Every structure is written in structure tokens, then in C-alpha cells.
């Protein structure tokens, strides 16, 4: 009987075409091709597109550093900050950048724990983006304190002044939230890189590349024990990072929610901020990955299906954000608090109404187009919407911070904030810093997790015919 089964003509079970899942890696590429193709982005002659992107990014980064130097040497008066708007672009930019980081952590941690296999094509770049975004974010709180050289006072260090940070202040919680976030993200990213760094080391053609990749590969040999430890550590770090996706931006929202300013003192802030952070983060991942997949010829690994899935996340979180905007208005009216209601009326119809409606247009309306499949599958179109998302989320933070502050309780204390050129160029400059770091990453490290992406190919699945599954009868 058994003999008969083995000898019989193989019949591969037939799945109707409309039920067939699109593979995550197209064209049944073999493992060797994946290694060559992904590692190849960081090897060989520097392509022209890289220089075209890198030179302006670097110049803008230098502008940023010059503005920061000017600020530190002169004082925060070079910004447009004033009373009553004591926080403006500085904290707007901080929240904007820290929010962007959240997509990386969500992709690397939560999607990992939820076994979302499509994450492997984008997690490396998204984690890198997280780290660079947190660097840009961390810059602003540090320089907005004015006397930067006393920044260490934020940390609970024993000192000759016998003073200690105020543990009841959300600003201190922020210090811990952001520094923890940066540390865990960096560790997670670096640890995930180790097998790929070893691949780069083994492929290296020059002594210096061999030395540097070898140094950071920490002696990885790919033995069973190495892989076993690696998988365990990866799972642990994913578990550690998961609460951070929710906690970091919740704590950032406490900077506002714990205060008593109308428009800030709102219990909806933590979930609303987290949804907004994931929304903006996926927006930025799309803005980065769509050009990168095309320039570095990674369309078979970062497929239209990946883009489509990210568009769905953008649409879902964008809708949550839209719901939060509506609910803020409802509660402002329902609370019966005239100051609260005024703050929201003033947002939508006051002197900063232009910013409010840019925010609503970009964040609430524009992602709704992703209900249509043609919109989700057209990379050019998705790229444009992702830029809108980035713009909208910057304006969201601007609206929350500046419109709430500029008219609080006393009309005699009202004002109108205008940025100076230093405000503007410092912010633009952080894009230079961000892009410089990201391009260096794309040029010197594998932009896709080579070892992980192999695991989601059909031939890695033992139940798949390409993976060696024996065909059987029905």
C-alpha cells in the first residue's frame, strides 16, 4: 500500500488562482540571488543616485548644525519663541520626529510577535529610520533648554548642588522614555544586523571592509548555537520593545496632557498620540522605501503587496486620528468648559485655522483614498500621499502646541507666534541629518534583513513543493 503511494503519479493540490496568496518574494528567487542582490546595494561602485541624494542632504545637515551652533552660542532668543508661546517649533519638531520612529518599532516588535511575515522586507530600513528619527528628535529638547552644557541636569546624577530632577514632571519621564526607546531600538537593530554583518564580512573584497564588518559581526559563524541564541534574544528584545511602542508616545503626550492648558489637558491624548505616531511612521517608511526600492532595484523583495499592506495601516491609523480630532471637539462641547470649547473653536476658526485645515486635509482626508485598491498599488500615488501624511503630522503637532498656547486664559496675554529663519532652517536641517544618516546606512549596511527575508521564501517552507514537500494523492 505504502509502496503504491510513493510510486503513484504526483498530483500537486490545485488552489484556485483567486485564493492563491501573492508570494512575499517575487519570481521564486533562490537564496544566493537574495544575498547577492541585497548585499550588492552596499557593495561595488557608489551609484549616481546615491550621490545625487547624499550631497544635498549633507549640505542641509551642515546648515542644521550651523543653526544649532548659532543657537547655542547666542541663546534661544534666535528662535521665535516668546510669551505666551514658549514652546513652538522646537517641541513640534521633537514630537514629529519621535512619532516617526514608532513605525520602526511597531514593524520590528509587534509585527514580529504577531507573525506578520511581510515585515521582513521592510523591518531593517524601518528600524534604521527609527534610530535616525530619534536622533533628530533628541536634538530639540536638548537644544531648547538654552544652556546645553547643563543638559546633564536632566539625569538623576549625584552632584555638588544637592539637587535632583523633579520626578513628578512629565518632562523627566520624557527623558527616560526617549533614552530607553533609543537604547532598545539601537540594540534591536544592531542585534538583527549581526548575521548580515557576517555575510558582508564574508563577501568583503578589501581588508578594511573585512575588518570593519568583521569587528561588528562579533565573530558570528552561523553555528546552530549562534542561531539559537540569536532567535531567543530577538524574541526577548521584541517583547521588550512592544510596550515601548505604546509607552513612549503616551509619555510624550503627557508633556501636554498633564498640564492645565485648555487644548492640552485631555485624556484622549495617549492613544491619540500613539495612533498618530504609527500613522506618521508608516508615512515616512513609505516615503523612504518607495524611492529606495526603485533606485536600488529591490522591487521583487519590497513588493507592491508590501506597499499595499502599509497603505492599509496608514488608512487605519489615519482614521483613528480623524476620530480623535472629532472626539476632542465633542468633549470640548460636552464638558461645558468655556475655555476648553474656546481652545478648539480657536483651533479651527482662529488665526491658525490655516494650519488646522492643512492638518485635517492631510491626515484625515488624504489617506481615505486608500479604500481603493488602485490607489494602494500605484507607488507614485502612494508616495505623494505619504508626503501629505508627513506634512499633516507635522502640522498636527504645531496645531496642538502653538494654537493651545497662543490664547490661553487671559486675553491680555494672547500673542501670535512667527518662526524666525533659524527656526525654519533648523527644522529643514534635521531632514538633512536624517537623510544623511539614512543614505549612509543604505550605502554601507544591508537595507533588507538578508537572513530573515530568506525565511519567508517558498523554498524555506518545508510544506511547500519548492521547499521539498513530497507531493501526495487526493
Amino acid at each position, binding site marked *: 500500500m505504502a509502496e503504491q503511494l510513493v510510486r503513484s503519479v504526483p498530483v500537486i493540490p490545485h488552489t484556485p488562482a483567486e485564493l492563491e496568496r501573492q508570494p512575499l518574494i517575487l519570481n521564486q528567487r533562490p537564496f544566493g540571488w537574495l544575498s547577492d542582490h541585497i548585499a550588492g546595494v552596499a557593495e561595488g561602485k557608489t551609484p549616481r543616485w546615491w550621490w545625487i541624494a547624499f550631497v544635498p542632504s549633507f549640505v542641509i545637515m551642515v546648515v542644521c548644525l550651523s543653526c544649532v551652533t548659532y543657537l547655542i552660542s547666542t541663546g534661544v532668543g534666535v528662535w521665535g519663541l516668546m510669551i505666551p508661546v514658549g514652546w513652538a517649533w522646537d517641541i513640534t519638531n521633537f514630537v514629529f520626529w519621535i512619532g516617526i520612529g514608532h513605525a520602526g518599532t511597531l514593524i520590528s516588535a509587534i509585527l514580529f510577535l504577531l507573525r506578520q511575515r511581510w515585515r521582513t522586507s521592510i523591518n531593517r530600513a524601518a528600524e534604521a529610520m527609527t534610530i535616525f528619527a530619534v536622533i533628530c528628535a533628541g536634538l530639540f529638547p536638548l537644544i531648547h533648554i538654552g544652556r546645553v552644557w547643563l543638559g546633564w541636569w536632566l539625569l538623576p546624577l549625584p552632584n*555638588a*548642588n544637592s*539637587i535632583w530632577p523633579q520626578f513628578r514632571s512629565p518632562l523627566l519621564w520624557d527623558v527616560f522614555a526617549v533614552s530607553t526607546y533609543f537604547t532598545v531600538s539601537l540594540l534591536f537593530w544592531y542585534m538583527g544586523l549581526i548575521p548580515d554583518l557576517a555575510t558582508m*564580512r*564574508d563577501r568583503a573584497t578589501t581588508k578594511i571592509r573585512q*575588518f570593519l564588518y*568583521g569587528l561588528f559581526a562579533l565573530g558570528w559563524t552561523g553555528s546552530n548555537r549562534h542561531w539559537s541564541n540569536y532567535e531567543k534574544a530577538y524574541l526577548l528584545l521584541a517583547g521588550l520593545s512592544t510596550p515601548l511602542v505604546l509607552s513612549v508616545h503616551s509619555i510624550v503626550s503627557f508633556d501636554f496632557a498633564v498640564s492645565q492648558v485648555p487644548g492640552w489637558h485631555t485624556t484622549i491624548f495617549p492613544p491619540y498620540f500613539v495612533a498618530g505616531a504609527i500613522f506618521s511612521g508608516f508615512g515616512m517608511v513609505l516615503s523612504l522605501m518607495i524611492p529606495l526600492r526603485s533606485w536600488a532595484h529591490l522591487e521583487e523583495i519590497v513588493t507592491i503587496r508590501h506597499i499595499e499592506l502599509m497603505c492599509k495601516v496608514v488608512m487605519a491609523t489615519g482614521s483613528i486620528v480623524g476620530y480623535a480630532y472629532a472626539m476632542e471637539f465633542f468633549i470640548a462641547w460636552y464638558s461645558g468648559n468655556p475655555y476648553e470649547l474656546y481652545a478648539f473653536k480657536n483651533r479651527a476658526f482662529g488665526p491658525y485655522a490655516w494650519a488646522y485645515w492643512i492638518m485635517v486635509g492631510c491626515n484625515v482626508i488624504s489617506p481615505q483614498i486608500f479604500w481603493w485598491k488602485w490607489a494602494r498599488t500605484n507607488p507614485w500615488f502612494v508616495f505623494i500621499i505619504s508626503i501629505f501624511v508627513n506634512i499633516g503630522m507635522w502640522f498636527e503637532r504645531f496645531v496642538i502646541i502653538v494654537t493651545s498656547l497662543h490664547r490661553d486664559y487671559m486675553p491680555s496675554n494672547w500673542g501670535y507666534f512667527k518662526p524666525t529663519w533659524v527656526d525654519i532652517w533648523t527644522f529643514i536641517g534635521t531632514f538633512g541629518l536624517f537623510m544623511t544618516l539614512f543614505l549612509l546606512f543604505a550605502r554601507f549596511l544591508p537595507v533588507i534583513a538578508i537572513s530573515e527575508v530568506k525565511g519567508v521564501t517558498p523554498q524555506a517552507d518545508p510544506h511547500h513543493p519548492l521547499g521539498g514537500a513530497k507531493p501526495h494523492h487526493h
Partner: protein
Amino acid sequence: MANIFPRWSNRLPLLVIIGLFLVGTAAIAGIWYYFTPKYTRVGYQPVQPVPFSHAVHVDQIGLDCRYCHSAVEKSWYSNIPTASTCMNCHNQVLKDDPRLAAIRESAATGIPVPWVQVHKVPDYVYFNHSVHVNRGISCVHCHGEINKMDEVYHAKPLSMTFCLDCHRNPAPNLRPPEKVTDLAWNPHQHLPKDWGEKAKKDWKVNASQNCSACHR
């Protein structure tokens, strides 16, 4: 494939960790010792235009601090006396002594003697002498045993810790108002144990720890 790294590099991480630990410890210890006012201020003793001895005037002759620093009970500032205060005695005593030439000249011309200030809080710190001396804080707490100094030197760190230690627990440093300028008088010898606590309560000593108390 040949090894990229020599065998000894296996030990490198451990050596780096030990090295960083040692360097870190040394740096912390160094900063702890050399970078605080306990080291940077204590012992400062500039050369003064006239070698005025507090030891002679206070300890031997028995002058009260307030004879010269007459505003200390009324003002935030404890004044340095003008030369005319010196001349009250020195127009009779040591009237031709060459060491006092600068004093006589100042008294004649009205141009102050250029004394070098020893005790100086930073300009972002507000300190009020009168409120302290009127509530039983002796000169000796902040200035040390001036009565024993031939030339004044910086005896206490006057760091923020120094201020806060007392503001957080003022009772042990209180003494009866009439003993405030008696620097040789030791309150622990003469006062009952709970005297400080009682004085603190009776005089409503409420030493502020608010930032804006000093950083106005």
C-alpha cells in the same frame, strides 16, 4: 579562509570593559574631588593691599564684627568698612606705621582701598545677610573662624549643597541672637540638645528650598 582577527582579540572585549570601568571610575573620582567648590574655592586667599589681621582685631582686641561690618543686620550686603572706620583708632594707634599708608591715603583722598573680595556667590544667586544673622545664623557658619585668621581665606565651599544642607535642616545651626557675632562661642557646649528645634519653631524659621528663593 584565514582568520581576520588574531587569537588575542578574543580577550579584547573583556579588556575594553575593564579599561572603561577603570577610566570611568577615575574620571568620576577626579571630577568628584577636583571639580567641586570644596576644592575650587576652599583655601582661596588673595593678597590684600593692606595686611589686615582679623585675628588681632577680633581675637586679641575683642572688636565685634559689626563695628566694621555695620550694615550686616540691616542689609542684604555686609559692607567693607571705609578707611575712616579704621582711622577712628589708627589716627592714634600706629599712626605712622608704613603698613597703614594705604589706609591713611584712602582716608585723605576718599578713594576706597582696593580690597580683594574673597567670599562671592555667583551673580545668579541672591543672598541676604540680614535675614540670616537676625535669625541666629552665626558668621562662622559660612565664613569659618575669621577670628583666627591673620589674613582672610575662603574656609567653606559656599556651594549649593552647602546652602541646602542648612536650609533642609536649620535647627542645629541656630544660636541665640546675641551670640551670632561671637565666633569663638560653641553652641553645642552651651545649649541644651533640643534648643535648636525650639528656636526654629519659636522664630518661625522657614528656610526656603524653592529655586526662586535664591535664583530670583
